[in-house]
Structures are given as C-alpha cells and as structure tokens.
C-alpha cells in the first residue's frame, strides 16, 4: 500500500490509543512500536514503545541474525513480575522497554546489520496477539562515535 495511506492510518490509531475497546484494537505493530539504533559497533539497542493498556512478555522475546542464528545473550531488563497461580511466574513490560542485543564480530566490517525480532504481547481489554516477527536494520556508521547516555 502506498506510503501516505499507511501514514494516515497511523495517525488514526495514535489518536485512538487512549481509550481501548475491542473494535479499536490496535494492530500489533502499532501497539508495540519498535525502533533500533547502534550503541556501539558491537551492540544494537532496541526500543519498544508500548501503547497504554498493552503489554509484552519478557520471556517471549527472540532475536535472530539474518542467517537465522539465535542471539542468546540479549540484555532484557527485569519486567513487572506477576505470580499467576495458573500460568506461573510471568514478567511483563508496559509503556517502554529498552533491550541491548549484542552483535557478533562478523558484523564489524558491515555498515548495516539486519536482525529478526520476535515478540509477543496482549491487551488488557482481553486479547493476546500471535507472536510478531519484525525485521530491523541497524546502521553501524559512526556508531562508536555516537554518545549514549
């Protein structure tokens, strides 16, 4: 679909994000908005901006290289812990989460690295989304010189 129609759709959902009812359920890519940048030549930082009333499960994240290799040692911050008598212990993120994903030395020579990000979450109004697969591209140009608080 053309760019301006999608952009218009995004404006519409952003306006709705405050009050949620089933008819206005956000698409997962709008409920969980991802962005990425390089922290340094060895680390990508992923940020998820999570719409109000939505949450992501900490243990459902998965990161893969373009070749399909699983990146095991991503740094996921602690989430909100819930001891569910039924589903056991779950950790969830709301509003915002920042995840550090290490890049392998093999990437050092490259200017861009593509990562596959898999995440899964739910909405408080009573639905869970199927896992979402997204490709992000990390630009490594000048990454080591860029400051990061």
């Amino acid at each position, binding site marked *: *679909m*053309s760019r*301006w*129609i999608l952009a*218009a*759709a995004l*404006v*519409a959902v952003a*306006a709705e994000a405050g009050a949620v009812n*089933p*008819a*206005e*359920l956000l*698409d*997962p890519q709008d409920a969980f908005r991802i962005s990425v940048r390089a922290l340094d030549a060895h680390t990508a930082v992923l940020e998820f901006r999570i719409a109000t009333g939505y949450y992501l499960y900490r243990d*459902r994240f998965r990161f893969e290289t373009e070749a399909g290799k699983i990146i095991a040692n991503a740094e996921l911050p602690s989430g909100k812990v819930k001891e*569910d008598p*039924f*589903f056991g212990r779950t950790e969830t993120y709301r509003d915002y989460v920042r995840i550090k994903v290490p890049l392998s030395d093999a990437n050092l020579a490259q200017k861009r690295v593509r990562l596959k990000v898999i995440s*899964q979450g*739910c*909405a408080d*109004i*009573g*639905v*869970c*989304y*199927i*896992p979402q697969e997204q490709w992000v591209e990390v630009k490594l140009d000048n990454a080591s010189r860029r400051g990061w608080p």
Partner: protein
Amino acid sequence: MIVRLMLAGAFFATALSARADEAAVRRMFEGKLRGSGAIETVQKVPWGDLYEVVIRSPDGPVIYYVDSAASVLIVGQAFDAKTGRNFTEERQRKLTAVKWDSLPLQWAITSKRGNGRRKIAILSDPNCPYCKRFEGDLATLDDITVHILPYAVLGPKSTQQAKAVWCSKNRVQAWNDLVQRRVEPQAAPDCDTPIDKLAEYGRSLGANSTPTWFLESGERYSGAMSLDEVRPLLDQASPAKR
C-alpha cells in the same frame, strides 16, 4: 404516469452523477495504491455526502472515506451523532464476516449444553489467559453450543498441548482440564491432528489475536468480552425458533 416518469428521470440523473463521482474516487485511489492493497468496493455512504472505499490489504479490509470531489481523504470512524451508533465498526464487522457453514467445525472441540441453540466458534490458544476467562464465562451459559477451534499460535508449547488434547480420548475434558485447571493432557501428541491446518486457517483469515470468535451470523469479534455483552449478541445471532 407523468409523476412516475419524472421520478424515474430524477433517479436516473442521481445515479449517473453518483457514478461519475464514484469513478473519480476510484481513479484517485488507484493512483495512490501500489502493490499490497487493492480496491474492493467504492460506494456512497447512506449517512452523508461521502464515499466509502474498502481496500483489501494482507491484514484484511480497511475502510477509508473520500469526499465526492475526490479531494479529501478521511481516516477514522464515523458515528451517528444522536445515537452513538458506530457506522464504521458495523461495516467492518460485515466485511470480516464469514459464512458460518464455511468454518472448519470438523476440527472443533464441541460441547453442547441444554438445547444448544446459541452457537459460537472460538479460535483459542491454551496459553492465552483471556481465552481461559472467556471460555470459563461461556461455561456458565445454558442452551449453547461452543465450538473450540484450537488455534495454537502463541508458542511451540501451545502446539504440543493442543495436539495432545486432540489425541485424547475425551477431547472436551482434556481441553477444559488444560485450559481451566492446568492439568496437562496425558495423550501422546502423535496422532493425526488438524492443529497445523487450523493455524494456517486462522492466519488466512488474518486472525492475529486470541480469542477470535464467530457468531452464527458469521460476524467476527476479538477478545474476552464480558458475559453481559456477549449474551445479547449470541441471542441476536441465534434467535430462538418458534
């Protein structure tokens, strides 16, 4: 006779001008769309001087509104200002409706209470907390037929569990034990199951969340709606036969 002719003429004239606008709207949209979406319908809305354009995208139908000069595009929902009726939502529901008979109920885990009059089919994952709540609520209703379509999409564990349930001697009990009481199914998940086919089926409908459910009218809903909300919907879609 004269009156009738005049009416017919007037009708013809409006039909003609409506068509001209329609064509303009269609042309404008076609110029903007590239690739993944296609225009499904363009029609005048019955509640205002606007055209509704339905685009068929990979995620299902999307509704836009355009003025009759095809110069302004509106994205959003239209409500009846007096009654609060949501026109856009109603249209969306019609557009995503399926034929009840087309649902693969041969792959369902079906339980019936009372005369089974009210019918519902639910795409449900065993690890979705809202599916558990929704099914638990429905279990308190009488005169209902519940078709669970095991939609194992939240993880590999769900697939393994759903297959084991399907391979159980008593599927209804095995499903309810798992979903409501967290008792793992004992059967080996190695019989012929429809679980993979159901995952494919749900994806083909663009069901990207659980629970996603259907009334006998074919209308589709998402989420664990409260019993107070779902009961009238069930009664409306499956009216009592006299």
